[in-house]
Protein backbone atom coordinates (compact mmCIF):
# COMPACT_ATOMS: atom_id res chain seq x y z
CA UNK A 1 0.00 0.00 0.00
CA UNK A 2 1.41 3.43 -0.92
CA UNK A 3 2.70 5.35 2.09
CA UNK A 4 0.47 8.13 3.29
CA UNK A 5 3.11 9.32 5.75
CA UNK A 6 2.81 13.12 5.76
CA UNK A 7 5.78 15.09 4.50
CA UNK A 8 6.61 18.70 3.77
CA UNK A 9 7.56 18.83 0.11
CA UNK A 10 7.52 22.53 -0.69
CA UNK A 11 8.39 25.77 1.07
CA UNK A 12 8.11 29.38 0.00
CA UNK A 13 8.87 32.73 1.56
CA UNK A 14 7.32 35.95 0.40
CA UNK A 15 9.52 39.05 0.38
CA UNK A 16 10.48 40.60 3.73
CA UNK A 17 11.13 42.52 5.92
CA UNK A 18 9.91 45.83 4.41
CA UNK A 19 7.62 45.41 1.41
CA UNK A 20 5.47 48.50 0.84
CA UNK A 21 4.14 47.28 -2.52
CA UNK A 22 2.49 44.06 -1.28
CA UNK A 23 -0.68 43.67 0.76
CA UNK A 24 -1.42 40.67 2.97
CA UNK A 25 -3.24 38.72 0.28
CA UNK A 26 -0.37 39.27 -2.15
CA UNK A 27 2.10 37.99 0.45
CA UNK A 28 0.01 34.80 0.68
CA UNK A 29 0.05 34.50 -3.10
CA UNK A 30 3.77 35.16 -3.59
CA UNK A 31 4.70 32.65 -0.90
CA UNK A 32 2.28 30.10 -2.41
CA UNK A 33 3.74 30.55 -5.90
CA UNK A 34 7.23 30.02 -4.57
CA UNK A 35 6.26 26.94 -2.52
CA UNK A 36 4.52 25.36 -5.51
CA UNK A 37 7.50 26.12 -7.75
CA UNK A 38 9.87 24.82 -5.07
CA UNK A 39 8.39 21.32 -5.12
CA UNK A 40 7.21 21.38 -8.73
CA UNK A 41 3.80 19.93 -7.97
CA UNK A 42 0.91 20.65 -10.33
CA UNK A 43 -1.20 23.29 -8.68
CA UNK A 44 -4.29 21.33 -9.64
CA UNK A 45 -3.08 18.50 -7.38
CA UNK A 46 -3.63 20.66 -4.29
CA UNK A 47 -6.84 19.47 -2.68
CA UNK A 48 -6.46 20.83 0.81
CA UNK A 49 -6.07 24.39 2.07
CA UNK A 50 -5.11 25.65 5.50
CA UNK A 51 -4.67 29.17 6.74
CA UNK A 52 -5.52 31.33 9.71
CA UNK A 53 -8.45 33.66 9.65
CA UNK A 54 -5.88 36.45 9.22
CA UNK A 55 -7.34 39.90 9.39
CA UNK A 56 -10.76 38.43 8.74
CA UNK A 57 -13.32 38.66 5.95
CA UNK A 58 -13.07 42.45 5.87
CA UNK A 59 -9.48 42.19 4.69
CA UNK A 60 -10.17 39.25 2.41
CA UNK A 61 -7.48 37.04 3.89
CA UNK A 62 -9.67 34.65 5.86
CA UNK A 63 -9.29 31.01 4.88
CA UNK A 64 -12.31 30.71 2.57
CA UNK A 65 -11.54 33.97 0.79
CA UNK A 66 -7.92 32.94 0.39
CA UNK A 67 -8.87 29.49 -0.92
CA UNK A 68 -10.93 31.20 -3.60
CA UNK A 69 -8.24 33.79 -4.39
CA UNK A 70 -5.58 31.10 -4.70
CA UNK A 71 -7.90 28.88 -6.69
CA UNK A 72 -7.88 25.88 -4.40
CA UNK A 73 -11.03 23.79 -4.66
CA UNK A 74 -10.37 21.96 -1.47
CA UNK A 75 -11.60 18.65 -0.14
CA UNK A 76 -10.14 19.63 3.22
CA UNK A 77 -10.09 23.12 4.73
CA UNK A 78 -8.91 24.34 8.10
CA UNK A 79 -8.87 27.88 9.41
CA UNK A 80 -7.44 27.29 12.86
CA UNK A 81 -6.41 30.62 14.32
CA UNK A 82 -4.54 30.45 17.62
CA UNK A 83 -2.13 33.31 17.02
CA UNK A 84 1.51 32.92 16.04
CA UNK A 85 1.62 29.17 16.61
CA UNK A 86 -1.28 28.54 14.21
CA UNK A 87 1.03 27.00 11.62
CA UNK A 88 2.43 24.37 13.96
CA UNK A 89 -1.17 23.42 14.71
CA UNK A 90 -1.82 23.48 10.95
CA UNK A 91 0.93 20.94 10.34
CA UNK A 92 -0.55 18.73 13.05
CA UNK A 93 -4.00 18.97 11.47
CA UNK A 94 -2.84 18.66 7.87
CA UNK A 95 -0.72 15.63 8.75
CA UNK A 96 -3.76 13.94 10.26
CA UNK A 97 -5.91 14.84 7.24
CA UNK A 98 -3.31 13.44 4.83
CA UNK A 99 -2.89 10.24 6.87
CA UNK A 100 -6.63 9.78 7.04
CA UNK A 101 -7.07 10.37 3.32
CA UNK A 102 -9.29 13.44 3.65
CA UNK A 103 -7.02 14.93 1.02
CA UNK A 104 -3.62 14.24 -0.55
CA UNK A 105 -1.87 17.56 -0.85
CA UNK A 106 -2.31 20.55 1.43
CA UNK A 107 -1.26 24.14 0.83
CA UNK A 108 -0.68 26.21 3.99
CA UNK A 109 -0.23 29.94 3.51
CA UNK A 110 0.38 33.08 5.54
CA UNK A 111 0.81 36.70 4.59
CA UNK A 112 0.89 39.99 6.44
CA UNK A 113 1.64 43.60 5.62
CA UNK A 114 1.73 44.50 9.29
CA UNK A 115 4.70 46.86 9.13
CA UNK A 116 3.49 48.70 6.05
CA UNK A 117 -0.06 48.92 7.35
CA UNK A 118 0.68 50.03 10.89
CA UNK A 119 3.78 52.07 10.35
CA UNK A 120 6.41 52.19 13.01
CA UNK A 121 4.37 52.31 16.18
CA UNK A 122 7.34 51.17 18.25
CA UNK A 123 5.89 47.74 18.71
CA UNK A 124 4.19 48.57 21.96
CA UNK A 125 0.67 49.22 20.76
CA UNK A 126 -2.06 47.02 22.15
CA UNK A 127 -4.74 45.21 20.24
CA UNK A 128 -7.14 47.95 21.31
CA UNK A 129 -5.95 51.31 20.07
CA UNK A 130 -8.82 53.62 20.95
CA UNK A 131 -11.23 54.18 23.77
CA UNK A 132 -13.95 51.82 22.52
CA UNK A 133 -15.41 49.52 25.18
CA UNK A 134 -13.46 46.27 25.44
CA UNK A 135 -15.48 43.05 25.23
CA UNK A 136 -14.81 39.54 26.49
CA UNK A 137 -12.10 38.57 28.93
CA UNK A 138 -9.76 41.24 27.56
CA UNK A 139 -11.88 43.79 29.42
CA UNK A 140 -10.22 42.53 32.59
CA UNK A 141 -6.81 43.75 31.31
CA UNK A 142 -6.89 46.13 28.34
CA UNK A 143 -8.58 49.01 30.21
CA UNK A 144 -5.61 49.07 32.61
CA UNK A 145 -3.24 49.73 29.72
CA UNK A 146 -1.61 46.32 29.32
CA UNK A 147 0.68 46.31 26.28
CA UNK A 148 1.63 43.06 24.60
CA UNK A 149 5.17 43.49 25.93
CA UNK A 150 3.78 43.99 29.43
CA UNK A 151 2.04 40.62 29.34
CA UNK A 152 5.32 38.83 28.63
CA UNK A 153 7.09 41.02 31.16
CA UNK A 154 4.80 39.58 33.85
CA UNK A 155 6.13 36.12 33.04
CA UNK A 156 9.74 37.29 32.86
CA UNK A 157 9.50 39.02 36.25
CA UNK A 158 8.04 35.92 37.88
CA UNK A 159 10.76 33.73 36.32
CA UNK A 160 13.41 36.04 37.77
CA UNK A 161 11.74 35.89 41.17
CA UNK A 162 11.43 32.10 41.29
CA UNK A 163 14.71 31.10 39.69
CA UNK A 164 17.05 34.06 39.92
CA UNK A 165 17.07 34.47 36.16
CA UNK A 166 18.84 37.67 35.10
CA UNK A 167 18.34 40.26 32.38
CA UNK A 168 21.80 39.30 31.14
CA UNK A 169 20.65 35.72 30.61
CA UNK A 170 17.56 36.80 28.70
CA UNK A 171 19.73 39.16 26.64
CA UNK A 172 22.01 36.29 25.65
CA UNK A 173 19.07 34.84 23.68
CA UNK A 174 18.73 38.05 21.65
CA UNK A 175 22.49 38.22 21.08
CA UNK A 176 22.65 34.65 19.73
CA UNK A 177 19.70 35.16 17.41
CA UNK A 178 21.25 38.39 16.09
CA UNK A 179 24.41 36.48 15.23
CA UNK A 180 22.36 34.25 12.93
CA UNK A 181 20.54 37.27 11.50
CA UNK A 182 23.93 38.53 10.38
CA UNK A 183 24.09 35.50 8.08
CA UNK A 184 20.68 36.22 6.55
CA UNK A 185 20.86 39.00 3.96
CA UNK A 186 17.11 39.61 4.26
CA UNK A 187 16.99 39.93 8.05
CA UNK A 188 15.55 43.16 9.45
CA UNK A 189 18.55 43.82 11.69
CA UNK A 190 21.95 42.26 11.02
CA UNK A 191 24.59 44.18 12.94
CA UNK A 192 26.01 42.19 15.86
CA UNK A 193 24.82 43.16 19.34
CA UNK A 194 26.15 42.46 22.81
CA UNK A 195 24.44 41.71 26.11
CA UNK A 196 25.23 45.29 27.11
CA UNK A 197 23.47 46.56 23.99
CA UNK A 198 20.32 44.72 25.03
CA UNK A 199 20.52 45.96 28.61
CA UNK A 200 21.13 49.54 27.56
CA UNK A 201 18.29 49.55 25.04
CA UNK A 202 15.17 51.35 26.23
CA UNK A 203 13.14 49.62 28.94
CA UNK A 204 9.65 49.01 27.51
CA UNK A 205 7.98 47.07 30.31
CA UNK A 206 10.20 45.90 33.16
CA UNK A 207 12.11 43.67 32.88
CA UNK A 208 11.92 43.59 29.07
CA UNK A 209 14.03 45.99 27.03
CA UNK A 210 13.47 46.96 23.45
CA UNK A 211 15.98 44.35 22.26
CA UNK A 212 14.17 41.64 24.26
CA UNK A 213 11.26 42.21 21.86
CA UNK A 214 10.69 40.96 18.33
CA UNK A 215 10.79 43.21 15.31
CA UNK A 216 7.77 44.20 13.24
CA UNK A 217 7.96 43.41 9.53
CA UNK A 218 5.97 42.48 6.48
CA UNK A 219 6.20 38.97 5.11
CA UNK A 220 4.58 35.69 4.26
CA UNK A 221 5.25 32.00 3.97
CA UNK A 222 3.80 28.84 2.50
CA UNK A 223 4.19 25.11 2.90
CA UNK A 224 3.08 22.26 0.67
CA UNK A 225 2.42 18.99 2.47
CA UNK A 226 1.62 15.71 0.80
CA UNK A 227 2.07 11.96 1.14
CA UNK A 228 5.45 10.29 1.04
CA UNK A 229 4.26 8.47 -2.07
CA UNK A 230 3.38 11.61 -4.03
CA UNK A 231 6.54 13.36 -2.83
CA UNK A 232 8.69 10.71 -4.56
CA UNK A 233 7.98 12.35 -7.92
CA UNK A 234 8.62 15.90 -6.74
CA UNK A 235 11.69 18.08 -7.03
CA UNK A 236 12.70 18.30 -3.39
CA UNK A 237 13.56 15.56 -0.91
CA UNK A 238 10.61 15.01 1.44
CA UNK A 239 10.90 16.23 5.01
CA UNK A 240 9.01 13.89 7.30
CA UNK A 241 6.57 15.02 9.96
CA UNK A 242 7.62 12.78 12.85
CA UNK A 243 5.67 14.39 15.65
CA UNK A 244 3.16 17.19 16.03
CA UNK A 245 1.25 18.10 19.18
CA UNK A 246 -0.41 21.18 20.58
CA UNK A 247 -2.11 22.44 23.72
CA UNK A 248 -3.67 25.53 25.25
CA UNK A 249 -3.33 26.37 28.93
CA UNK A 250 -5.16 29.72 28.75
CA UNK A 251 -5.74 32.49 26.24
CA UNK A 252 -5.54 35.82 28.09
CA UNK A 253 -2.31 36.31 30.03
CA UNK A 254 -4.23 36.94 33.26
CA UNK A 255 -5.54 33.37 33.06
CA UNK A 256 -2.11 31.72 32.74
CA UNK A 257 -2.13 29.07 35.48
CA UNK A 258 1.60 29.27 36.21
CA UNK A 259 3.60 32.16 34.78
CA UNK A 260 6.81 30.15 34.64
CA UNK A 261 5.49 27.08 32.86
CA UNK A 262 4.09 27.14 29.37
CA UNK A 263 2.20 24.53 27.37
CA UNK A 264 5.45 23.36 25.79
CA UNK A 265 5.77 21.18 28.87
CA UNK A 266 2.68 19.31 27.67
CA UNK A 267 2.93 19.25 23.87
CA UNK A 268 6.73 18.92 23.79
CA UNK A 269 6.88 15.51 25.46
CA UNK A 270 3.90 14.37 23.37
CA UNK A 271 5.65 15.33 20.11
CA UNK A 272 8.90 13.69 21.25
CA UNK A 273 7.02 10.50 22.10
CA UNK A 274 5.37 10.42 18.66
CA UNK A 275 8.74 10.89 16.99
CA UNK A 276 10.47 8.41 19.29
CA UNK A 277 13.30 10.84 19.97
CA UNK A 278 14.51 12.97 22.88
CA UNK A 279 15.58 16.62 23.14
CA UNK A 280 19.21 15.52 22.96
CA UNK A 281 18.57 14.05 19.49
CA UNK A 282 17.46 17.38 17.99
CA UNK A 283 20.06 19.10 15.80
CA UNK A 284 18.46 22.54 15.53
CA UNK A 285 15.53 24.25 17.20
CA UNK A 286 13.32 26.98 15.78
CA UNK A 287 11.63 28.49 18.82
CA UNK A 288 9.06 31.26 18.63
CA UNK A 289 11.01 34.29 19.81
CA UNK A 290 8.32 36.93 20.22
CA UNK A 291 10.31 37.94 23.29
CA UNK A 292 13.42 36.53 24.90
CA UNK A 293 11.36 35.11 27.78
CA UNK A 294 9.26 33.11 25.30
CA UNK A 295 12.35 31.19 24.22
CA UNK A 296 13.49 30.59 27.77
CA UNK A 297 10.15 29.16 28.87
CA UNK A 298 10.10 27.01 25.74
CA UNK A 299 13.58 25.59 26.33
CA UNK A 300 12.51 24.53 29.81
CA UNK A 301 9.11 23.24 28.76
CA UNK A 302 10.50 21.19 25.89
CA UNK A 303 13.11 19.68 28.18
CA UNK A 304 16.27 21.08 26.59
CA UNK A 305 17.08 22.04 30.15
CA UNK A 306 15.39 21.63 33.50
CA UNK A 307 12.71 23.91 34.84
CA UNK A 308 14.25 27.13 36.10
CA UNK A 309 17.57 26.27 34.46
CA UNK A 310 16.95 28.23 31.26
CA UNK A 311 19.18 31.10 32.36
CA UNK A 312 22.22 28.93 32.98
CA UNK A 313 21.51 26.91 29.82
CA UNK A 314 21.52 29.89 27.47
CA UNK A 315 24.60 31.33 29.20
CA UNK A 316 26.47 28.19 28.21
CA UNK A 317 26.03 29.18 24.58
CA UNK A 318 23.99 26.20 23.42
CA UNK A 319 21.75 28.36 21.22
CA UNK A 320 24.64 29.96 19.37
CA UNK A 321 26.09 29.11 15.99
CA UNK A 322 28.25 26.07 16.66
CA UNK A 323 26.45 25.38 19.94
CA UNK A 324 24.72 22.13 20.84
CA UNK A 325 21.27 23.46 19.88
CA UNK A 326 21.59 26.19 17.24
CA UNK A 327 18.35 28.12 17.59
CA UNK A 328 16.49 30.43 15.24
CA UNK A 329 19.08 30.07 12.54
CA UNK A 330 17.26 32.48 10.20
CA UNK A 331 17.65 35.33 12.65
CA UNK A 332 14.32 34.72 14.35
CA UNK A 333 11.61 37.15 15.23
CA UNK A 334 14.01 39.05 17.45
CA UNK A 335 16.12 40.14 14.48
CA UNK A 336 14.88 38.86 11.11
CA UNK A 337 11.14 39.02 10.61
CA UNK A 338 7.89 39.01 12.56
CA UNK A 339 4.89 40.10 10.51
CA UNK A 340 2.49 39.35 13.37
CA UNK A 341 2.38 35.56 13.36
CA UNK A 342 5.74 33.92 12.94
CA UNK A 343 4.98 30.21 13.22
CA UNK A 344 5.29 29.38 9.53
CA UNK A 345 8.84 30.74 9.38
CA UNK A 346 9.94 28.30 12.10
CA UNK A 347 8.79 25.42 9.91
CA UNK A 348 10.32 26.83 6.72
CA UNK A 349 13.68 27.33 8.40
CA UNK A 350 13.54 23.84 9.89
CA UNK A 351 12.95 22.41 6.41
CA UNK A 352 15.80 24.48 4.94
CA UNK A 353 18.13 23.11 7.59
CA UNK A 354 17.07 19.51 6.99
CA UNK A 355 17.50 19.93 3.23
CA UNK A 356 20.98 21.33 3.81
CA UNK A 357 19.90 24.59 2.16
CA UNK A 358 20.52 26.96 5.05
CA UNK A 359 23.65 28.53 3.58
CA UNK A 360 26.09 30.00 6.05
CA UNK A 361 23.70 29.23 8.89
CA UNK A 362 23.62 25.54 8.00
CA UNK A 363 23.86 23.23 11.00
CA UNK A 364 26.22 20.44 9.88
CA UNK A 365 24.49 17.13 9.22
CA UNK A 366 21.14 18.31 10.54
CA UNK A 367 18.80 15.32 10.57
CA UNK A 368 16.19 16.30 13.16
CA UNK A 369 14.71 19.75 13.65
CA UNK A 370 12.14 21.03 16.10
CA UNK A 371 9.76 23.94 15.64
CA UNK A 372 7.78 25.22 18.60
CA UNK A 373 5.22 27.98 18.21
CA UNK A 374 3.60 30.18 20.83
CA UNK A 375 0.30 31.87 20.13
CA UNK A 376 -1.56 34.50 22.09
CA UNK A 377 0.16 35.32 25.37
CA UNK A 378 2.24 32.14 25.95
CA UNK A 379 -1.16 30.50 25.45
CA UNK A 380 -1.57 28.11 22.53
CA UNK A 381 1.62 26.12 22.08
CA UNK A 382 2.45 23.51 19.47
CA UNK A 383 5.57 21.47 18.76
CA UNK A 384 6.49 19.91 15.42
CA UNK A 385 9.41 17.53 14.99
CA UNK A 386 10.69 17.12 11.45
CA UNK A 387 13.15 14.57 10.10
CA UNK A 388 15.29 14.21 7.02
CA UNK A 389 14.96 10.46 6.98
CA UNK A 390 12.05 8.11 6.68
CA UNK A 391 10.77 7.15 10.14
CA UNK A 392 11.57 3.55 11.02
Amino acid sequence: MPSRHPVICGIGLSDYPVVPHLNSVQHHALAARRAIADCGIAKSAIDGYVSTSGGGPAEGDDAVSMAEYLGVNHRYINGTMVGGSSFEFHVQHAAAAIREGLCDTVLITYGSDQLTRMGRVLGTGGFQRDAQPVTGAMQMATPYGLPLVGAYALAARRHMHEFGTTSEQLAEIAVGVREFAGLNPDARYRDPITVDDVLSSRMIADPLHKLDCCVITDGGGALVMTTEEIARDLRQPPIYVLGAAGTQTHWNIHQMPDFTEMGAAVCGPEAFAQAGVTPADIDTAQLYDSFTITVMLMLEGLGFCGRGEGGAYVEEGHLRRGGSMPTNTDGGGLSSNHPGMRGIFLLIEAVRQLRGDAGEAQVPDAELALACGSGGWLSAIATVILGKDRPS
Partner: protein
Amino acid sequence: MRVVSDLEWQGPVPAGEGEYGEFFAAAAKGRLLIQQCPECGHRQHYPRAICTACGAEPEWMEAAGTGTVYTYTVVRQYGVPAFAELPYVLAMIDLPEGVRMFGGLTGIDPEAVEIGMPVTAYARTYDETHAMIFWEPA
Protein backbone atom coordinates in the same frame (compact mmCIF):
# COMPACT_ATOMS: atom_id res chain seq x y z
CA MET B 1 -13.83 48.38 49.62
CA ARG B 2 -13.03 52.03 49.01
CA VAL B 3 -14.66 53.55 45.91
CA VAL B 4 -12.97 56.43 44.12
CA SER B 5 -14.98 58.50 41.67
CA ASP B 6 -13.10 59.06 38.43
CA LEU B 7 -15.62 60.03 35.79
CA GLU B 8 -12.94 61.90 33.83
CA TRP B 9 -11.40 58.58 32.77
CA GLN B 10 -10.57 58.80 29.04
CA GLY B 11 -9.10 55.35 28.52
CA PRO B 12 -10.77 52.24 27.18
CA VAL B 13 -13.49 50.87 29.45
CA PRO B 14 -14.95 47.41 29.95
CA ALA B 15 -17.98 46.68 27.77
CA GLY B 16 -19.57 44.92 30.74
CA GLU B 17 -21.63 42.43 28.77
CA GLY B 18 -23.12 39.43 30.61
CA GLU B 19 -21.54 38.52 33.96
CA TYR B 20 -18.85 41.15 33.49
CA GLY B 21 -21.45 43.87 34.01
CA GLU B 22 -22.48 42.47 37.39
CA PHE B 23 -18.84 42.39 38.46
CA PHE B 24 -18.18 46.03 37.54
CA ALA B 25 -21.52 47.20 38.98
CA ALA B 26 -20.78 45.51 42.31
CA ALA B 27 -17.34 47.13 42.34
CA ALA B 28 -18.97 50.55 42.05
CA LYS B 29 -20.86 49.69 45.26
CA GLY B 30 -17.66 48.72 47.04
CA ARG B 31 -17.99 44.95 46.65
CA LEU B 32 -15.26 42.79 45.08
CA LEU B 33 -16.94 39.73 43.58
CA ILE B 34 -15.49 36.41 42.53
CA GLN B 35 -17.36 33.24 41.67
CA GLN B 36 -17.73 29.98 43.57
CA CYS B 37 -19.29 26.79 42.29
CA PRO B 38 -22.12 25.45 44.49
CA GLU B 39 -21.46 21.93 43.15
CA CYS B 40 -17.69 21.49 43.45
CA GLY B 41 -16.55 24.53 45.41
CA HIS B 42 -14.19 25.73 42.67
CA ARG B 43 -13.52 29.47 42.72
CA GLN B 44 -12.82 31.49 39.62
CA HIS B 45 -12.22 34.91 38.17
CA TYR B 46 -13.08 36.40 35.56
CA PRO B 47 -16.82 35.84 35.93
CA ARG B 48 -18.58 33.54 33.49
CA ALA B 49 -21.70 31.45 33.08
CA ILE B 50 -20.03 28.09 33.75
CA CYS B 51 -17.77 26.57 36.36
CA THR B 52 -14.49 25.85 34.56
CA ALA B 53 -13.85 22.85 36.83
CA CYS B 54 -17.13 20.90 36.73
CA GLY B 55 -19.46 22.67 34.32
CA ALA B 56 -22.13 23.70 36.82
CA GLU B 57 -23.52 27.22 37.19
CA PRO B 58 -21.31 29.31 39.48
CA GLU B 59 -22.53 31.70 42.18
CA TRP B 60 -21.17 35.05 43.28
CA MET B 61 -19.20 35.40 46.48
CA GLU B 62 -17.63 38.49 47.96
CA ALA B 63 -13.88 38.58 48.39
CA ALA B 64 -12.16 40.37 51.27
CA GLY B 65 -10.35 42.75 48.94
CA THR B 66 -6.87 41.78 50.05
CA GLY B 67 -4.04 40.01 48.28
CA THR B 68 -0.34 39.73 47.54
CA VAL B 69 1.61 40.56 44.39
CA TYR B 70 2.25 37.40 42.32
CA THR B 71 4.09 39.23 39.56
CA TYR B 72 4.18 42.73 38.07
CA THR B 73 5.56 44.93 35.34
CA VAL B 74 6.33 48.63 35.11
CA VAL B 75 5.04 49.95 31.79
CA ARG B 76 7.48 52.60 30.55
CA GLN B 77 6.42 52.93 26.93
CA TYR B 78 3.03 52.41 25.33
CA GLY B 79 1.91 54.05 22.13
CA VAL B 80 -1.68 54.60 23.25
CA PRO B 81 -2.68 58.20 24.10
CA ALA B 82 -4.92 57.18 27.03
CA PHE B 83 -1.85 55.78 28.79
CA ALA B 84 0.50 58.66 28.17
CA GLU B 85 1.19 59.09 31.89
CA LEU B 86 4.16 56.79 32.33
CA PRO B 87 5.43 54.80 34.08
CA TYR B 88 2.68 52.81 35.77
CA VAL B 89 2.55 49.44 37.49
CA LEU B 90 0.40 46.48 36.45
CA ALA B 91 0.23 43.38 38.58
CA MET B 92 -1.24 39.96 39.06
CA ILE B 93 -2.63 39.68 42.58
CA ASP B 94 -3.11 36.43 44.49
CA LEU B 95 -6.29 36.66 46.58
CA PRO B 96 -6.58 34.66 49.81
CA GLU B 97 -9.84 33.25 48.40
CA GLY B 98 -7.77 31.29 45.86
CA VAL B 99 -8.10 33.24 42.64
CA ARG B 100 -5.65 35.53 40.85
CA MET B 101 -6.68 38.94 39.57
CA PHE B 102 -5.04 41.40 37.18
CA GLY B 103 -5.10 45.13 37.81
CA GLY B 104 -3.31 48.42 38.19
CA LEU B 105 -1.15 48.93 41.30
CA THR B 106 -1.09 52.55 42.43
CA GLY B 107 0.12 54.59 45.40
CA ILE B 108 3.65 53.23 45.28
CA ASP B 109 6.96 54.14 43.68
CA PRO B 110 7.36 51.66 40.79
CA GLU B 111 10.89 50.92 42.01
CA ALA B 112 9.53 49.84 45.39
CA VAL B 113 7.15 47.14 44.12
CA GLU B 114 8.06 43.62 45.21
CA ILE B 115 6.61 40.23 44.53
CA GLY B 116 4.86 38.98 47.66
CA MET B 117 3.98 42.41 49.04
CA PRO B 118 0.49 42.71 50.57
CA VAL B 119 -2.00 44.92 48.76
CA THR B 120 -5.58 46.12 49.22
CA ALA B 121 -8.23 46.53 46.54
CA TYR B 122 -10.11 49.70 45.77
CA ALA B 123 -12.59 50.56 43.06
CA ARG B 124 -12.38 53.44 40.59
CA THR B 125 -15.60 54.36 38.79
CA TYR B 126 -15.53 54.85 35.03
CA ASP B 127 -19.21 55.74 34.68
CA GLU B 128 -22.06 56.41 37.13
CA THR B 129 -22.69 52.77 37.96
CA HIS B 130 -19.53 50.79 37.12
CA ALA B 131 -16.01 50.64 38.53
CA MET B 132 -12.69 48.90 37.80
CA ILE B 133 -10.62 47.27 40.53
CA PHE B 134 -7.22 48.73 41.39
CA TRP B 135 -4.75 47.83 44.12
CA GLU B 136 -2.56 49.78 46.52
CA PRO B 137 -0.07 48.82 49.23
CA ALA B 138 -1.81 47.42 52.31
